[in-house]
């Protein structure tokens, strides 16, 4: 569907109040979010103009884990649609502050918030909030579980470059076990018909992933020739109880995307990374900044996707 610069209507079939996990969104719903994102990108002239379609609405950013990129992206998205934003962050656990996490959220909701965007180190925390709050809840990453807007922006980026998702071979490389980006990508890509490969050391990519209908590979070099897209996931040093590989040096040796590996890849391969990237670990600087890299397009698309999500959740009159 060609995107128009009109503010897209919210179809009557859309019934979600929250965006918690892509696992439970249909292919049509995912496509709707992508289309809406493209329209809003045009309607805001790529961010040069602000709309007022969410004027009077307030979006709270509730970040219990460090983030600059996702938090700013949500803030900008809300502001470009005319919504107000409230920022709340806490790096420590809510318990250590003597206030439970739910109480913190309820306090912020009581300030008249229409949507809460939450990031937390524990899976299921946005779901817990959705049960206890009346407002919309958007999952901005819950531990290793899901990061739906990241999955959506990755998929949008691929679709823009290739026109379609169906039939493409997309490899997610790295720390799959601890990656919320991987899980959201897997659900979304599979629903839209891609062939998904997860690739990384056996300690971070178990054979069990095959049961989700995807391919498990430990040797990156063996799949380069047939991948249309490589999404290089960040090594989540902070989530690993025991070190899953001997050294960063060895990881880079086996899995870093280098100039040399690029030469053995498909000529039109897309290189993606959800960031923040560890240069020299997941990919070398020349690859990150090279012609195949769409890393910065992902960032731009992040704002479009988040505008689309906020619009779909908050835009309906009376919602």
């Amino acid at each position, binding site marked *: 569907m060609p995107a128009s610069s009109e503010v897209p209507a919210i179809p009557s079939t859309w019934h979600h109040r929250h965006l918690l996990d892509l696992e439970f969104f249909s292919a049509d719903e995912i496509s709707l979010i992508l289309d809406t994102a493209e329209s809003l990108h045009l309607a805001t002239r790529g961010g040069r103009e602000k709309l007022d379609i969410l004027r009077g609405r307030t979006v709270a950013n509730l970040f219990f884990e460090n983030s600059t990129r996702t938090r700013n992206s949500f803030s900008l998205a809300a502001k470009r649609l005319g919504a107000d934003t409230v920022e709340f962050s806490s790096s420590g*656990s*809510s318990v250590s502050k003597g206030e439970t*996490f739910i109480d913190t959220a309820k306090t912020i909701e009581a300030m008249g918030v229409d949507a809460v965007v939450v990031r937390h180190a524990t899976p*299921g*925390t946005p779901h817990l909030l959705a049960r206890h709050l009346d407002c919309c809840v958007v999952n901005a990453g819950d*531990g290793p579980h899901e990061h739906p807007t990241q999955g959506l922006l990755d998929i949008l980026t691929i679709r823009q470059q290739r026109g379609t998702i169906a039939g493409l071979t997309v490899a997610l490389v790295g720390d799959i076990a*601890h990656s919320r980006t991987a899980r959201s990508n897997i659900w979304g890509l599979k629903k839209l018909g891609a062939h998904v490969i997860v690739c990384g050391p056996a300690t971070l990519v*178990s054979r069990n992933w095959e049961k989700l209908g995807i391919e498990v590979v430990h040797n990156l070099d063996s799949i380069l020739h047939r991948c249309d897209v490589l999404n290089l996931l960040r090594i989540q040093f902070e989530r690993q109880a025991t070190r899953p590989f001997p050294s960063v040096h060895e990881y880079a040796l086996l899995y870093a995307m280098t100039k040399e590996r690029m030469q053995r890849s498909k000529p039109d391969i897309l290189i993606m990374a959800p960031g923040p990237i560890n240069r020299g670990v997941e990919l070398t600087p020349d690859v990150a900044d090279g012609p195949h890299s769409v890393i910065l397009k992902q960032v731009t698309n992040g704002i479009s996707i988040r505008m689309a999500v906020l619009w779909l959740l908050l835009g309906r009159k009376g919602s």
Partner: protein
Amino acid sequence: MFNAETHTSWLLDNGQIVDPANGIDRIGRLLIHEGKIAAIDPSDGDIPNDAIRIDAHGMIVAPGLIDIGTDLGEPGREEDETISSGCLSAVAGGYSSIACSANTEPAIDTVASVQFIQQKSLKVNQCRVHVIGCVSKDRRGEEMAEIGALVEAGAIALSDMPRPIENTALLKRALEYCSMFDRPLLDHPELLSLTRHGVMHEDMTQLVLGLPPMPAEAEDLATARDLRLVEATGGRLHLTNISTIGSVELCRRAKSRGLPFSVGLNSVNFHLMDQLLRSFDSNCKVNPPLRSAEHLDACVSALADGTIDVIATGHRPFSVEKKMQELDAAPFGMISLETTLSAVISFLIRPGYLNWSDAISKMTCNPAKVLGLTSGTLSVGQPADVVLIDPGLKWKVDAEELLSKASNTPLNGHELFGRSVMLFVDGKLKFTRLAVAV
């Protein structure tokens, strides 16, 4: 004036008497008189005139249930449970005896703390409360508690549960040491180095949710280690709760070789699956964790073939504010004193995996044997600890209505079959759902 609580003569008439220790499973009448089991099928002339007849038609008459390792919260965690609320919950669930865990603050590692529980529970005067003392000081797993003194004060068994004894050298010593006092050591088999930070059973549900894993092999390896130490020391060991295919198989093989030890399981591990964590409900966070279907099947088979001797409640009460945290911060546990019997009836007896006699034995005479108690039977002359069970009673769990102070159960809102309707402890009526009149 008639007072049901102090009345001493009761005739439970026409019920199905299930007394596995004595091989009894038949329709009959049971006479309770002056605190004792006076007779089974007494002649009319032997029934005291003031005996109150309870029509037990269609009901099960069984020894009062016995739980091993109940958490009472007190002292130290009175916001979760007290000795009083825990005992009320026990009698409502059909339990005439509980052996409370040392999982208190301070832990039960001194004579004074044993005596505190004893005195408090006598005052509460609901069910019998036996005290489990710590194996290690403050349950820290470093040095042995004063086991001899604890036993002298009345500790019936020694355990650091729900924490495992991770230090193998300590476990070996403690098994040797406890054998001097002829008291069992209860261990929760878990290798902490494989489950550290873990929240749920490692399998597909865990993989999709991204929650930190608790792999089955963490239990299997600890079970293997514990059994090997029983063999080496001749110590008296009870594995409090197994839940995996591997543990079941290890125990089965060890028993077939004649190794003396006993095995328990928490009731949730035969009927609740790991998939329930899809709700991210912290009430489903228990230890041992809810496992996947094949492990549940293995546990049911092990109950049926006698590999598992004891069904425990695994009662771990926690206040709402503790459970309402993020999943990794929320503590492990659920309340289950009032739902375990119903779970046994609903998921083991009704589907035909266990008959009444086998099921009741795992909640009465078998735990009694583990603890060295003479109770758990309906032998004539024994103190009358008797439960009356309505096996067909369908009820819906309402966590707020349960007598435990806590309400952390994933069974809230679920329908279960069967429930205890009357409980006698020492011949006294302690709990009834039936109207009692002269």
